[in-house]
């Protein structure tokens, strides 16, 4: 584990390389030394052998010369000539000592021993080394190495005694002993031993060796051939050994100790080993320190990087020396700051509404989720009134700025831990921690008071109102989504009723699970064909004919009976399920209309389109395809749109309306007069008719004001080239009034209640019949 750390890896690599290099170097030095020693040994042994031969030769000459000189000594000759044994022996000893000869013998020309320094009784016995004599007789003198009776090897020199003719031979023996060997050893630089070997054994005669090696030598020599150097071992010592003949029966052994030859190289090698070991030790230490200096900062940086990985951007990276790692540290610090900044930005984007700087929906929901479960809290949803108009009239930039300053003002009235968020468009949400109904109510009042003061934008005073819905936790729900939805529903109610604010508890028990079950039921209803369409005919009062009818969606609920649209359409709109209902409705109505046409009954149905439908980009295509599929002319149907539906996204709504109008579909403004749409605004829309809100129609007889409104609306509508439809005519008086006012079409209980499609043709036939009567 430890070897995975950078520090040790660096150290190991460097030290390993050093050891490798040193080992190679040592191996080479050792090998080269071995070669040098081997060459040196060979050289020394051959040089030694040469020196030895020279010395032996020189020795021989010297001995011969000395012997010759001695033999020519007059007194010596004189003494020999006396033939007197004691005298001769005495002079032999005396003169032999002069030249260091240990053995002296006198032999007569016939080869008989006259005198021997070693033996008193030697006279007339035969000379022990006749072969020497034979050589001397032809060559004047002779020399050889001979082993004598005492076992000792001698270098024998035989020279004549001339007076002046040969009167005798004198033989002189110089002992070949350890001293001789040591002397030669000193001269040659080699170990010198003299051995005599026969077939069976080898005897050591003299040697410069001592002790055990001296004893071991003969046995080792058994395998040795003459004149060929060979390495012999004596225990731990090794000798390069050369065997040379010495005389006829003896050999000399020249040896050079390998260990001695190696000694200077060994000491050099040992010094080298010490240096290498020292170098490695220093290198280990140095590289550990060095790698620690590298790895230390790296480890520091690793710790920093780990902190950053864990999301802690607060700790700055420590300042390091300005090397590569220091630069890395600087980069890491910049990265840390960059990440921190970007995270901040991302958080802002994720949690902040860029337009107002307020929290966004996500932040709002998360904040709510963090509040302790079960503790009281209130969620309020505010939707600005008439914002669409402002946006439309003054342009989006102004609208956006207005939202900004409204947001600022709203932010001021909520203290933390409360929160203001912009959900979308002109809808704001408030989180009021610990608020109960009383607190929430007071907040609603405070909010309205805050909004009452006009907003100034580019010198323009803008009055902005709003509708507020408040849901309380835990009474109205436990989770943010439920509470928001209920607050929104309450807000819609408040908006519809224009009563400032509504508590969610006030909109009736409509708990979330019922919503969900309702959605599920709606889906099932669609599959089971529980939805039905009823048609309410519209009467043209001037002709008394029925040309159009409003298609009204009904839900034939298996348990609850026939349900009116208001009881489920708002939820369908809110949950988005309306997107499935509307195409069904369109298809159903268009198919019915086509069937009627096929029967000869031409009816133009009005189909209610919600705000969501209008913003659905597929709507135009759906209409186009369905009418084309049923071979219905584009103006064979009419789409009814409320004013509020137009207000949500006027630009997109207008675009879709223009497309529909271009296709030829008829468009009607439903509930006209209940909203804020002005005629000036309507003028810009591609609409064909106005449908006056039934609240006005119901009281045209009793209220002159309403009558005036209706009258003027009809007049203005006509002036704009629009068809005007009155809704909610309940009595024949109403009908009469409307006919007189020039209303183009009238719809209401006074004419007919909504009826199933199957009944409509018959009803129209009966009505016509009644009229004709």
């Amino acid at each position: 584990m430890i070897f995975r750390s950078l520090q040790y890896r660096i150290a190991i690599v460097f030290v390993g390389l050093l050891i490798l290099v040193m080992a190679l170097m040592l191996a080479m030095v050792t090998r080269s030394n071995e070669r040098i020693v081997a060459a040196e040994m060979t050289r020394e042994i051959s040089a030694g052998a040469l020196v030895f031969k020279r010395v032996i030769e020189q020795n021989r000459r010297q001995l011969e010369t000395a012997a010759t000189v001695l033999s020519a000594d007059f007194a010596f000759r004189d003494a020999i000539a006396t033939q007197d044994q004691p005298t001769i022996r005495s002079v032999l000893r005396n003169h032999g000592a002069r030249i260091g000869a240990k053995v002296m013998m006198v032999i007569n020309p016939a080869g008989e021993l006259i005198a021997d320094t070693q033996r008193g009784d030697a006279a007339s016995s035969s000379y022990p080394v006749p072969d020497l004599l034979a050589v001397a007789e032809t060559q004047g003198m002779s020399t050889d190495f001979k082993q004598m009776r005492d076992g000792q090897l001698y270098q024998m020199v035989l020279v004549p005694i001339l007076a002046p003719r040969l009167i005798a031979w004198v033989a002189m023996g110089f002992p070949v002993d350890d001293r001789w060997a040591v002397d030669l050893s000193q001269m040659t630089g080699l170990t010198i031993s003299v051995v005599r070997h026969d077939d069976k054994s080898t005897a050591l005669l003299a040697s410069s060796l001592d002790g055990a090696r001296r004893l071991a030598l003969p046995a080792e020599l058994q395998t040795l051939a003459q004149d060929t150097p060979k390495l012999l071992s004596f225990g731990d010592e090794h000798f390069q050994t050369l065997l040379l003949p010495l005389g006829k029966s003896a050999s000399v052994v020249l040896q050079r100790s390998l260990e001695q030859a190696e000694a200077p190289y060994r000491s050099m090698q040992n010094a080298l080993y010490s240096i290498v070991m020292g170098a490695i030790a220093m290198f280990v230490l140095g590289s550990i320190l060095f790698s620690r200096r590298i790895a230390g900062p790296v480890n520091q940086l690793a710790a920093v990087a780990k902190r950053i990985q864990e999301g802690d951007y607060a700790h700055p990276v420590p300042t390091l020396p300005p090397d590569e790692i220091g630069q890395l540290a600087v980069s890491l610090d910049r990265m840390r700051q960059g990440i921190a900044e970007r995270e901040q930005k991302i958080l802002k984007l994720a949690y902040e509404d860029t337009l107002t700087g307020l929290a966004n929906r996500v932040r709002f929901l998360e904040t709510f989720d963090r509040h302790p479960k079960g503790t009281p809290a209130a969620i309020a949803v505010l939707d600005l009134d008439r914002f669409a108009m402002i946006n439309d009239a003054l342009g989006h930039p102004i609208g956006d700025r207005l939202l900004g300053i409204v947001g600022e003002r709203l932010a001021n009235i909520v203290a933390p831990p409360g929160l203001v968020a912009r959900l979308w468009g002109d809808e704001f949400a408030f989180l009021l921690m610990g608020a109960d109904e009383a607190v929430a109510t007071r907040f609603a009042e405070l909010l309205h008071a805050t909004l009452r003061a006009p907003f100034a934008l580019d010198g323009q005073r803008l009055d902005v109102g709003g509708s507020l819905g408040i849901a309380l936790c835990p009474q109205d729900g436990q989770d943010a989504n439920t509470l928001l939805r209920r607050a929104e529903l309450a807000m819609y109610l408040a908006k519809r009723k224009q009563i400032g604010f509504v508590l969610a508890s006030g909109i009736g028990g409509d708990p979330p699970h019922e919503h969900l079950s309702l959605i599920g039921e709606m889906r099932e209803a669609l599959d089971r064909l529980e939805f039905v369409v009823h048609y309410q005919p519209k009467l043209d009062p001037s002709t008394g004919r029925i040309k159009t009818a409003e298609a009204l969606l009904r839900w034939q609920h298996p348990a609850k009976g026939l349900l009116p649209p208001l009881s489920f359409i708002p939820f369908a709109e809110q949950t988005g399920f309306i997107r499935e209902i509307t195409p069904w409705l369109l298809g159903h109505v268009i198919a019915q209309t086509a069937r009627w046409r096929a029967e000869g009954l031409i009816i133009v149905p009005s189909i209610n389109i919600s705000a969501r439908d209008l913003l659905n980009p597929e709507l135009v295509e759906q209409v186009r395809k369905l009418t084309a599929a049923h071979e219905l002319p584009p103006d064979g149907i009419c789409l009814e749109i409320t004013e509020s539906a137009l207000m949500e996204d006027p630009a997109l709504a207008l675009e879709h309306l223009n497309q529909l109008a271009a296709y030829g579909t008829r468009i009607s403004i439903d509930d006209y007069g209940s909203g804020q749409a002005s005629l000036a605004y309507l003028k810009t829309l591609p609409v064909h008719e106005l449908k006056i809100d039934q609240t006005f129609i119901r009281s045209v007889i009793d209220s002159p004001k309403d009558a005036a409104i209706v009258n003027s609306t009809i007049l203005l509508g006509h002036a704009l080239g629009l068809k005007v439809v009155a809704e909610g005519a309940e009595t024949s008086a109403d009908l009469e009034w409307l006919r007189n006012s020039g209303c183009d079409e009238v719809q209401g209980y006074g004419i007919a209640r909504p009826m199933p499609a199957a009944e409509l043709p018959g009803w129209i036939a009966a009505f016509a019949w009644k009229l004709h009567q």
Partner: protein
Amino acid sequence: MTLKYCLAALFASCLSAQASTLEVHVSTPAGKSVEDAAVVLEPVAGIPPPREARASIAQQDRDFVPYVTIVRTGTAIDFPNRDPLKHHVYSFSSAKRFEIKLYAGKPAQPVIFDKPGEVALGCNIHDWMEAYVLVVNTPYFAKTSLQGRALLADVPPGRYRLRFWHPRQKAEPPAHEIEIGGRPAKLEQVMDVAARVFKPRQPTDAELY
């Protein structure tokens, strides 16, 4: 060879009344004439009375001259030194041991060779110098010339033992008796003699410069 002796003896005995001469030619078995061989006739009947006699062996040019000298027992031999340097003449031979230590000119006393036998002479300071003296008990002797010839004159008739000797003889030929008659006789003798080996001489001062 023996046949020749017989013939010669036959001649000699026939001519024994007067003094006669004996001529001998000595050669090696290879037929080469031998110089300096001694031919000695010893009368079988008895040795004639000694006579005073004198001889001389000179030292000349660092050599003995002559190489071989034959004298009758009792002869006094002078060793005149004719070299400008000294000599040290010696003999270790049993017939006559003597030495004349470093001398120049003619020594005052000659050396009397009073015993028969051969005497090898050397010079102690010039090892190569050698000379031989054969001392005999008869007045009848001669030395072969370079041609190997020796002439013994005025030998009275009678019976003699004939001896040959040479300093480098490998073996002395056996002596035999012959009859010397009135007529000159001739003899051929074969002797195995080694060629004279001259020992290396040291150069003289003059030779060096």
